[in-house]
C-alpha cells in the first residue's frame, strides 16, 4: 500500500472493467491456489452432486482411483470409487456417499479399495454450497499402513500370548525376536538371547543328523517339523516339538525363520510311562483281565497275553464276553457266588477256584478282583489278576498225601508197637479194648500180660508229648516192662510173678536216664488182676485213675495212686493201691483222651461223666461197654475226631475156672473181601477145637458158609463196600450150642428188603440170607443201643452123650 500523503499514491481511480478483470484475476488466482492446496494435501477429496455425480476431485483422488479426471468427472462416484467391505464389494446403495446424501448426515467407515490391498478411511458429508442443492464432499484417507500396523500388533500380541514358544531369527539363525513362552521355556532373558544363535540351546542329546536335515530343509525354503532335546539355561533338558517356517521376502530370498517350539517332555514321559505300564502288563506272568463295570453284563475290555496263555482263549474271543465263561462243572458255586456278591458291592475279593480253559480242562485260578473307580468314586471297571496255581495245588496235594501216608505209617507203628495184644478173654475175665489214634502220632500205649492162670497184668501208659519220639518212647517203655519182668522172674522169686511195684521200679531204673535226657515223662498204671484172690493191685504213676465198678454196690470207685510219673525224679519208690474184686465188677483203664474230650473250650467230658457211663453200661459186654462210652463222648463233644489218642481197656470180672462155656473166642476183622478166607479159617478152627465137643464136619461146612455169607453181607451192605471198617465175631460154645455174634457199625439191615431166592437159575443173587437161615438153627438180628448191627447165629449141638465124629470124616 502506498502512503496516503503522496500524490502518486493517490488512486487514480481504475476503470470498472479493469477493476473487474483484476478481481477475476485475483479470484482465479485464489481458486488456483485453492486447487493446488486441495491437491497438495494427502487426503483424496471429491465432491458430488445430489445424484452422486463427481463434480470435482483433487489429484490425490485421481491417483487413488487410478483414472484421469476426464474419466471421473460427471461419473457416478460408486462406479469410480469401487469399495469392498468384509471381503465383498460394497453395493451402490450402501456406498458411503449415497448413505450421506440419503441420511443428510456425515457417514464414515473403513473400506477396502476394490482390486487393491489398500484400506481407505472414508468420510462423506452432505454440504449445501448455497445453491439449495445438496452436494456430498468425500474425503478419503489411505490408512493401509495404519491398518497393517494394527494387524501386526494384533499378531504380535497373539504370538506373545501363545503357550508355545516362538522364535524369529534372521536368515543366519540369529535370534531377532522371542515371545514370553520362549523365555519361560528356555530360561534365557531376551537380552541374553537376542542376536545369539539358537545353538546355545543344544543339549548334545539330539543326533547331529537331525540338525543337518533341519538346515537342509529350511535353507531350501521348506518348513521343517521335528523333535529336539534342548537344554535350558539352568542345565536341565527338555524335549520339544519344533516347527521352523522360512519367511521369504519379495525377492524370494529368506528373510526370517519362524520357529514354534512345544515342550513335550511331560507328554513323552507320560507316553513312556504308559508304554512301560503296557509292557509290564503284557509281560507279567499273572493273567490280567479288565471288564467294564458300567456296560450290561460287564463285558471284558482287555486281557493280557498271560491271560490268553493261561486260559487258551485269544483276546479276540473273550473281548465283549463276561468272565464267567471260565467257569464250568469243576467250579465251586460257592466261590463264584462270593465273587459275584463282592463285585456287586464294589468290594475287592480274592477267590481260589477251579476254572476251565478253552479246551475244557480245569485249572486252579487264584483270582483277585478290585474295582477301578471313576472321578466320582463309582466303579467304572473291574480289574482281575489271576494266576494259575494248578501246579502248586498239585504239589500241596502231594505233600498232604505224603503227610497222610506218614501219619498212616506212624499210626501203624502205634498200632503195632504200642497197642497191646487183641486178647479178648482170659479165664475168668472178659476184655474189651479200643484205641483210636488221634490225627497226630501220640504216645499212648497199653499191654496185657498173661502171668498165669487167673492173673492178668494190664498196663496203660501215656508218654507226655506227641509225635514219633513219643511213640518210640512208648514202644521202649513196653519193651522195658517185658524185660523187667523177664529179669525179675530169673531172680529168687521165680515161682510167683514179680510184684507190680518191683516191675515199675525196674522199668523206671532202666528208663530214667533217657527220660531225663529227653526231658520227657511217662504216666503209667500197672495193674494186676488176680481173680483167684479177687484182688486188684495197682501201681499208679500219675496216670488217669482206674474206674472200678462194684457190682455188689452198683457204684463206681476211682483208684488212684500217689506215685510220680516215670522220669520226674531220679530215684523213686513205688507204692501200690489195692481193691477187692467181685464177680461182675468192671475195671476201666483209659487215657486222658477220654476225659479231656471237650465241648467248647472249657467243658471236659471228665471223670464223673465217665463213671456214670460205666455204671450205665455195666451190663454190656466189655466191647459193647466201650463202644457205648465212645458214643457218649462223640455225642458230648460233637465230633468223632479226637485230638488226643483214645485208649481204653475194659475188664469184666467173671468166675474163675469159668463155667460159662466150653470155649470163647473173639475174632476181629475188617470189611475187606480178602479177609473172608481168614474168617472161614477162624470159624473152622473154633468149631473144631471146642474142648470135648467139636462141631461135626457136615455141620461145620454149613457154619462156614453161613458165617461167610453174613460177613460178605456186612462188607457189601452194612459198610457198603467201605474197606477197613471193624467187624467183630464173638464165638461162644457151651455144651448145648455154638453161638456166633457178629457186630458191625454199618448201615442197619432191613430184612424186608431181602428178596426171596429163586431156584431155577434165572437169577444170580438173593441166596445169601436164605443160606444163612438154612445153615443155623436160630438167626437173630437186632440193631443194638450202640448203633451196631448185632447178628446172632446159633447152632444147636447134639447132646454130649453122642460120640462126636472126628473132623474131616464125612457126615452123610
Amino acid at each position, binding site marked *: 500500500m502506498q502512503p496516503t500523503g503522496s500524490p502518486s499514491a493517490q488512486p487514480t481511480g481504475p476503470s470498472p472493467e479493469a477493476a473487474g478483470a483484476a478481481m477475476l484475476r485475483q479470484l482465479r488466482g485464489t481458486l488456483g491456489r485453492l486447487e493446488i492446496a486441495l491437491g497438495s494435501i494427502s487426503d483424496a477429496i471429491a465432491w458430488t452432486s445430489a445424484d452422486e455425480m463427481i463434480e470435482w476431485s483433487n489429484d490425490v483422488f485421481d491417483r487413488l482411483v487410478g483414472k484421469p479426471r476426464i474419466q471421473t468427472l460427471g461419473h457416478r462416484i460408486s462406479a469410480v470409487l469401487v469399495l469392498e467391505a468384509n471381503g465383498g464389494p460394497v453395493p451402490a446403495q450402501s456406498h458411503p456417499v449415497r448413505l450421506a446424501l440419503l441420511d443428510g448426515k456425515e457417514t464414515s467407515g473403513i473400506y477396502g479399495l476394490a482390486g487393491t490391498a489398500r484400506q481407505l478411511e472414508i468420510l462423506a458429508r452432505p454440504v449445501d454450497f448455497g445453491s439449495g442443492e445438496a452436494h456430498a464432499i468425500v474425503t478419503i484417507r489411505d490408512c493401509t499402513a495404519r491398518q497393517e500396523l494394527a494387524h501386526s500388533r494384533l499378531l504380535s500380541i497373539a504370538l506373545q500370548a501363545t503357550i508355545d514358544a516362538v522364535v524369529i531369527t534372521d536368515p543366519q539363525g540369529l535370534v531377532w525376536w522371542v515371545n514370553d513362552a520362549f523365555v519361560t521355556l528356555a530360561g534365557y532373558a531376551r537380552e541374553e538371547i537376542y542376536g545369539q544363535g539358537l545353538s546355545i540351546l543344544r543339549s548334545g542329546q539330539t543326533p547331529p543328523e537331525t540338525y543337518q536335515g533341519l538346515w537342509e530343509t529350511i535353507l531350501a525354503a521348506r518348513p521343517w517339523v521335528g523333535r529336539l532335546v534342548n537344554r535350558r539355561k539352568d542345565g536341565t533338558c527338555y524335549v520339544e516339538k519344533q516347527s521352523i517356517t522360512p519367511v521369504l521376502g519379495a525377492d524370494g530370498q529368506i528373510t526370517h525363520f519362524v520357529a514354534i517350539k512345544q515342550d513335550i517332555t511331560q507328554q513323552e514321559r507320560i507316553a513312556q510311562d504308559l508304554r512301560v505300564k503296557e509292557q509290564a502288563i503284557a509281560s507279567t506272568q499273572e493273567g490280567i483281565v479288565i471288564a467294564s463295570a458300567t456296560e450290561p453284563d460287564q463285558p471284558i475290555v482287555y486281557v493280557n497275553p498271560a491271560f490268553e496263555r493261561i486260559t487258551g482263549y485269544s483276546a479276540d474271543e473273550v473281548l465283549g464276553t463276561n468272565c464267567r465263561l471260565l467257569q464250568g462243572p469243576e467250579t465251586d458255586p460257592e466261590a463264584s457266588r462270593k465273587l459275584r456278591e463282592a463285585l456287586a458291592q464294589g468290594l475287592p475279593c480274592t477267590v481260589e477256584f477251579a476254572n476251565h480253559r478253552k479246551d475244557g480242562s480245569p485249572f486252579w485260578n487264584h483270582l483277585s478282583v478290585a474295582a477301578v473307580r471313576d472321578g466320582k468314586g463309582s466303579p467304572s471297571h473291574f480289574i482281575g489278576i489271576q494266576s494259575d496255581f494248578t501246579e502248586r495245588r498239585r504239589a500241596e496235594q502231594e505233600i498232604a498225601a505224603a503227610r497222610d501216608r506218614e501219619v498212616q505209617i506212624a499210626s501203624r507203628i502205634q498200632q503195632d508197637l504200642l497197642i497191646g495184644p487183641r486178647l479178648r478173654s482170659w479165664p475168668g475175665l472178659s476184655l474189651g479194648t479200643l484205641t483210636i489214634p488221634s490225627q497226630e502220632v501220640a504216645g499212648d500205649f497199653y499191654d496185657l500180660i498173661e502171668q498165669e492162670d487167673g492173673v492178668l497184668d494190664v498196663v496203660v501208659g501215656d508218654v507226655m508229648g506227641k509225635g514219633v519220639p513219643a511213640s518210640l518212647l512208648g514202644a521202649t517203655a513196653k519193651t522195658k516192662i517185658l524185660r523187667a519182668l523177664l529179669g525179675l522172674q530169673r531172680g529168687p522169686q521165680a515161682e510167683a510173678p514179680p510184684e507190680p511195684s518191683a516191675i515199675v521200679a525196674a522199668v523206671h531204673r532202666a528208663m530214667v536216664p533217657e527220660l531225663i535226657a529227653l526231658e520227657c515223662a511217662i504216666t503209667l498204671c500197672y495193674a494186676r488182676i488176680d481173680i483167684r484172690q479177687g484182688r486188684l493191685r495197682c501201681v499208679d504213676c500219675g496216670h488217669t485213675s482206674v474206674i472200678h465198678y462194684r457190682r455188689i454196690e452198683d457204684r463206681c470207685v476211682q483208684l488212684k495212686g500217689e506215685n510220680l510219673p516215670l522220669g520226674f525224679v531220679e530215684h523213686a519208690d513205688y507204692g501200690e493201691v489195692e481193691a477187692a474184686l467181685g464177680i461182675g465188677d468192671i475195671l476201666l483203664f483209659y487215657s486222658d483222651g477220654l476225659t479231656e474230650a471237650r465241648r467248647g473250650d472249657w467243658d471236659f467230658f471228665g471223670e464223673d461223666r465217665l463213671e456214670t457211663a460205666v455204671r450205665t453200661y455195666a451190663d454190656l459186654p466189655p466191647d459193647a461197654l466201650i463202644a457205648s462210652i465212645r458214643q457218649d463222648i462223640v455225642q458230648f463233644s460233637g465230633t468223632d475226631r479226637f485230638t488226643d489218642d483214645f485208649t481204653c481197656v475194659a475188664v469184666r470180672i467173671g468166675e474163675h475156672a469159668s463155667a460159662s462155656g466150653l470155649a470163647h473166642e473173639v475174632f476181629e476183622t475188617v470189611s475187606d473181601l480178602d479177609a473172608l478166607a481168614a474168617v472161614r479159617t477162624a470159624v473152622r478152627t473154633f468149631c473144631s477145637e471146642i474142648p470135648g465137643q467139636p462141631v461135626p464136619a457136615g455141620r461145620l461146612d454149613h457154619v462156614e458158609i453161613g458165617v461167610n455169607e453174613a460177613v460178605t453181607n456186612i462188607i457189601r451192605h452194612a459198610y457198603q463196600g467201605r474197606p477197613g471198617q471193624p467187624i467183630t465175631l464173638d464165638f461162644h460154645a457151651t455144651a448145648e450150642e455154638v453161638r456166633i455174634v457178629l457186630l458191625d457199625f454199618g448201615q442197619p439191615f432191613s430184612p424186608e428188603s431181602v428178596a426171596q431166592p429163586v431156584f431155577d437159575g434165572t437169577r444170580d443173587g438173593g441166596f445169601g440170607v*436164605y443160606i444163612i437161615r438154612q445153615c443155623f438153627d436160630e438167626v437173630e438180628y437186632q440193631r443194638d443201643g450202640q448203633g451196631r448191627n448185632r447178628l446172632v447165629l446159633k447152632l444147636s449141638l447134639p447132646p454130649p452123650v453122642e460120640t462126636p465124629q472126628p473132623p474131616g470124616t464125612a457126615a452123610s
Partner: protein
Amino acid sequence: MPLTITVENGIAFVEANLDALDASNVQAFKSGMSPVIAEHAKVVLDFTHVRFVDSSGLGAILSSMRQLNGKGGDLKICSVSKSVRALFELVRFHRILDLLNTREEAVLAFGQ
C-alpha cells in the same frame, strides 16, 4: 485167575485152581470164564481143587450157565467136593445143573 483151560473133542475143560470161590475173587473168575463162554458151547468146570464156594461164586456159575444155555450150549461141573456139594444142595443147585463125579462122566453127560 488160575483157570486152566483145555479143549478136547469140542468140549472146554476149565480147571479152577482155587481153594475157594467167594466174593473176593468172583470178579476174576467171571472175567476168566467169559472168553471160554464166548468161544465154546460145551464147558465143563472141574472143581477138583475148590474147597469152598459161597453165594457169589454160585451166582457166577449160574451166570455162566445161563450164557451158555443162551447160545445153545451147556455147563457141567465135575469133581465137586463134599463141602461145596453141601452148599449146592442147600440152594437146590443140583436140580438145575449137572454135578458129575469125573470129567469122563461129564463128557458122557454131554453125549446124551
